[in-house]
């Protein structure tokens, strides 16, 4: 139970008490994504405007005539959260410089799931990041199109069974490796890129706060466990995120102006991937050889990040 050893026992005292995403939202039981959004809002505070893509978080939070949001929030469509956020940022900037609104600093945040970020929303995100808008974009990655019923995306990991890449007599589920979105954001020259997971709430909150302090584009890739889509117990949502990190499947790191830094939460020695796979129905069909291949890939990808953290730091 090293989580508690690492975790500040007085965590609640460190966290903004104000809930900016109210209860009554319709997220599935045990949804770690809505938890991540809740924690993100706490870290961002009230002076925030959020532009959300279509997806789980959008429909569960904004059932007319009510809303769970206590910060200004806009949803337009699926593929354009980053463009809408860019427009919000530009609109506020235009109004502010003319004195049409007060001069307080407002953080503009775009948010989308893995599909809305890595697939259909990819172009809008690339454009917004390249143009250098003063905005944070957070990808809440639950590794498939959960809102429409667990279809594969480019964020779905190798071997996972989804409704459009199912495991079958001649198929072992997803046939492709997960798209490396944080690296793509680093390649855009985004000032701050971080990976995070709500299983590590203080680390996640710190990263959001860091991104908030950046004047310019920043990107957080948040690993968001979906018990419904991953076919695991709802009580395991936090544990699954922790295992993904501890196995190196989803390493926690941050990249500031091209400099890589591993998060302190990363263990010295990785747990086997099979420990992470065990409780999830989406991996249940995988044989030993397949798990071995994935294990190898996870290790080599993890080593790449370690190397970057080591050598890019050394260039200082």
């Amino acid at each position: 139970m090293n989580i508690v050893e690492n975790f500040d026992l007085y965590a609640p005292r460190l966290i903004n008490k104000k809930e900016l995403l109210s209860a009554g939202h319709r997220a599935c039981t045990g949804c770690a994504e809505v938890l991540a959004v809740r924690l993100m809002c706490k870290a961002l505070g009230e002076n925030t405007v959020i532009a959300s893509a279509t997806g789980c978080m959008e429909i569960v939070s904004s059932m007319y005539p009510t809303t769970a949001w206590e910060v200004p929030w806009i949803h337009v469509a699926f593929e354009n959260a980053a463009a809408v956020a860019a427009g919000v940022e530009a609109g506020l900037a235009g109004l502010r410089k003319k004195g049409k609104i007060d001069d307080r600093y407002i953080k503009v945040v775009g948010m989308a799931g893995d599909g809305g970020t890595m697939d259909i929303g990819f172009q809008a995100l690339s454009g917004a990041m390249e143009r250098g808008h003063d905005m944070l974009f957070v990808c809440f990655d639950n590794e498939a199109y959960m809102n429409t019923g667990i279809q594969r995306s480019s964020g779905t990991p190798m071997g996972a069974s989804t409704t459009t890449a199912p495991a079958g007599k001649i198929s072992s589920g997803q046939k492709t490796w997960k798209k490396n979105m944080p690296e793509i954001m680093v390649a855009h020259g985004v000032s701050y890129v971080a990976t995070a997971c709500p299983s590590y709430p203080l680390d996640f909150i710190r990263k959001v706060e860091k991104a908030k302090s950046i004047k310019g584009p920043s990107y957080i890739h948040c690993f968001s466990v979906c018990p419904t889509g991953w076919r695991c117990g709802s009580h395991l949502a936090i544990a699954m995120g922790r295992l993904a990190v501890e196995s190196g499947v989803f390493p926690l790191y941050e990249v500031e102006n091209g400099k890589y830094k591993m998060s302190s939460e990363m263990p010295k020695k990785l747990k086997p991937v099979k420990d992470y796979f065990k409780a999830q129905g989406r991996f249940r069909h995988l044989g030993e050889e397949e798990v071995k291949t994935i294990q190898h890939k996870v290790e080599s990808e993890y080593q790449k990040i370690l190397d970057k953290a080591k050598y890019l730091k050394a260039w200082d």
Partner: protein
Amino acid sequence: MAKRIGLATWQEITTGCVVFDPGSASEYHTGSWRAQRPIWDNAKCIKCGICYVFCPEGCVQQSEDGFFKANLDYCKGCGICAHECWPRAITIVEEK
């Protein structure tokens, strides 16, 4: 906005379908989804607040005495709090 009684007519739809009541989703009580509920044993509780932090509903609240409990209007019974509670102060019991 006045308390919603019945469904709005087309003339009552807000301009642009904008929702002007922040946090009004709390009018909807997700507690009705629940099949099981968390019970705190305050004798074991160390008041660390992990249950509060990890609650996806944000419905675990700290009382004046420092102990925690879930607002059952919203608790969906996911069991995360019990699973993550280090001193095992929370147990999950079936709803009757």
